[in-house]
């Protein structure tokens, strides 16, 4: 199981790297917002796996707060894209 968590963590790190490259090559703001969301979630899952491996309970709380509050950045970016209109 420990090996599986390490393999999953490295796959997630690769996904985050691909996401960052995608953000750099994105042309419009909506794509950057979407891929930013993807990178955010893969980093949260990496931290959760890290917390499981080193028995720190803060990672479960982190995943909880991130999944509830973390999406506000995406909604804020959506509001920026439409120049403040609803």
């Amino acid at each position, binding site marked *: *199981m420990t*090996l*599986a*968590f390490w*393999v*999953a*963590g490295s*796959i*997630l790190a*690769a*996904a*985050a790297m*691909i*996401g960052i490259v*995608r953000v750099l090559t994105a*042309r*419009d*703001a*909506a*794509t950057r*917002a*979407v*891929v930013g*969301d*993807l990178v955010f*979630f*893969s980093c*949260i*899952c990496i931290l*959760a*796996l890290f*917390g*499981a*491996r080193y*028995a720190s*309970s803060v*990672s*479960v*709380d982190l*995943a*909880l707060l991130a*999944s*509830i509050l973390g*999406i506000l950045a*995406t*909604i804020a*970016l*959506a*509001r920026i*894209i*439409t*120049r403040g*209109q609803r």
Partner: protein
Amino acid sequence: MIVLEFLAGTLAIVGALLFLSVAIAQFRARDALSRINALGPATALGAPMLVLAVAIGRSLEQGLDWMLWIKTAITIVALVVVSSVASNVLARATCRSDAAVDEATHPNDLRSSQ
């Protein structure tokens, strides 16, 4: 016990592969709307799988802790509900804004209403 360990490992690896496939899909999708669509499997399926794998992994090592499972349930519900709301808001903003949308997107009432 071995079955639970195997289950946690499989959930973690499948969830991570979902993230990887979505990251690659961001390159293949042609416009922003289909990229928002492609984000679904990662946040609504990959992340809950990983959170579940972490919860199983911790329960195996630290014993059963009810608070952990309550937090995991809330996290999974939040992941499914909140991320789809955010994707919906972002897709609506993309339709309204000047982002390049596939020409097959008919009718686009949001954009024509400006």
